[in-house]
């Protein structure tokens, strides 16, 4: 069975992508899936050539034939998403493709057409194949795109007989995160010792519980507030979730990103510590 590892964080900016990048060099039979489609940054550190690029069709959207349209307004009043303006123009950003407008149109002026909502890239990196995607800004349905990235990653893993998939998930708790965590072998939640970090952690923990995902937590920059770090640990203790790693704040972490280097490949002392290798060992299992 494929070992699918997802790295998530309720709150953004906790260091999720830097840590995801840091574990990648330790795996040999790997497929990388960047499911943070709103902020796909993994390819900045894990450089790779695009092998294949294709459009992603998210769903169908209505197109109005204005020669047939009588401006009766029925589509506008029937739309529950306010996606049709009073002068009968489709507002793409709010349309969810339900096709009610097509159904109610008395003159058959509305037809549904495939809509491209993003792009999917298949890259070749020195660590193995990587699938990532980009949503056209403002498009919805990122959950669908995430599901597609994961499916392609699985396909590649089967084809090339690779046993590990590492998924960089998105922050938050909505459909894109749900798509990223369902059915994975392990989830790693990256948090930070702030009041917001703890608050968002609780929601993500709730989510992983709901979807029966096995999760462990990394407290990043734990020494920026030892008291909050302690509070986080107490909470996780109560929930029976293990803190598998605590990383100190180190300016070198930011510096390595600025120099486009994977943090764990620099000479930061943390990445040669026992805790770090123990953590990698856990991921491999």
């Amino acid at each position, binding site marked *: 069975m494929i070992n699918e590892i997802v790295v998530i964080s309720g709150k953004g900016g906790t260091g999720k992508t830097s840590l995801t990048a840091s574990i990648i060099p330790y795996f040999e039979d790997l497929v990388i899936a960047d499911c943070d489609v709103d902020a796909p940054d993994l390819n900045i550190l894990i450089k790779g050539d695009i092998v294949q690029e294709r459009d992603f069709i998210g769903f169908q959207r209505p197109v109005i034939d204005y020669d047939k349209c009588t401006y009766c307004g029925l589509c506008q009043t029937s739309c529950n998403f306010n996606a049709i303006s009073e002068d009968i123009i489709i507002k793409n950003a709010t349309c969810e493709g339900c096709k009610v407008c097509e159904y109610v149109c008395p003159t058959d002026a509305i037809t549904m057409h495939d809509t491209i909502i993003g792009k999917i890239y298949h890259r070749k990196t020195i660590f193995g194949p990587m699938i990532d995607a980009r949503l056209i800004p403002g498009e*919805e349905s990122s959950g669908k795109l995430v599901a597609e990235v994961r499916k392609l990653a699985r396909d590649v893993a089967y084809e090339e007989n690779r046993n590990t998939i590492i998924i960089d998930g998105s922050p938050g708790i909505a459909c894109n995160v749900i798509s990223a965590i369902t059915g994975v072998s392990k989830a790693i939640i990256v948090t930070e010792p702030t009041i917001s970090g703890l608050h968002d952690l609780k929601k993500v923990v709730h989510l992983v519980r709901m979807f029966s995902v096995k999760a462990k937590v990394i407290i990043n920059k734990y020494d920026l507030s030892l008291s909050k770090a302690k509070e986080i640990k107490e909470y996780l203790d109560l929930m029976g979730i293990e803190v598998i790693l605590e990383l100190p704040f180190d300016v070198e972490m930011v510096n390595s990103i600025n120099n486009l280097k994977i943090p764990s490949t620099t000479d930061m002392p943390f990445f040669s510590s026992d805790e770090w290798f123990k953590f990698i060992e856990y991921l491999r299992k």
Partner: protein
Amino acid sequence: MNIAILSGKGGTGKTTLSVNLFSYLNKGTLIDTDVEEPNSHLFLKGKLIKEEGVYKKYPLVDDDLCNYCGKCGDFCNFNAIIPAKKKVLVFQDLCHDCGGCSLVCPTDAIKYIDKEVGKIYHHQIDDNKLFLYGNMTVGEVSGVKIIETLEETTKNEEILLIDSPPGTSCSTVAAIKGADYCIICAEPTPFGISDMRMVVELLRAEKRNFGVVVNKYNLGNSEIFKYLEEEGIELLEKIKFDREFANLLADGELLINHSEYFTNKMANIAKKVLGDKND
């Protein structure tokens, strides 16, 4: 005047900027539309004056009226209603509330009932300031409905700050719908620049005026400033990273209560964005 504060990636200091700028202002209203992970309320101490549910509708099938024709299932694009042999299954969490199934039902067997998808909390801060935030129920797929309700409730405010969800997805679009001006909070790392570009793309597509606050500028390199200059984007202010700030934020403190440096930064941003409206 409506001002949205947004960021491409999370953790750049968007909420810090929102709550401190809001607290600096003499009057106005703040809404936290980051309904998946609202954090503003952790920093703002006010009095809870109202709490309301936000509801979405989902179909309920009357078994006596249903003739199991299957039309509702064929119509639904979201697999939320599946007519089986002796009953019609409805999956509430998949329903987008488009109304299609009841529209196509030949026997009028489908009614809609309400389901709570989140809550909105109203807080009074001082005498003349209001703060509202939305909170999406865990397991729901989209917060757009809550964001729209927040915006609808506050559409007539004189000065409105909108703490927007990070990223460039549908919920960000919903949050900036009524914004006259947008402030992007960015950090000067390669990730920060890449994510900011996506927001810039979005704001240009939506034809918004915007400027940028570079946060933690001493933790990055100068690429971001080069980018802003090349693109002709206004740099509103730059703010340093300071361990002391990090400590205060960790405990939910407002930085303007502790740092003159930070207060000056807020004053400057308020002046650039609001002009004399804050007087």
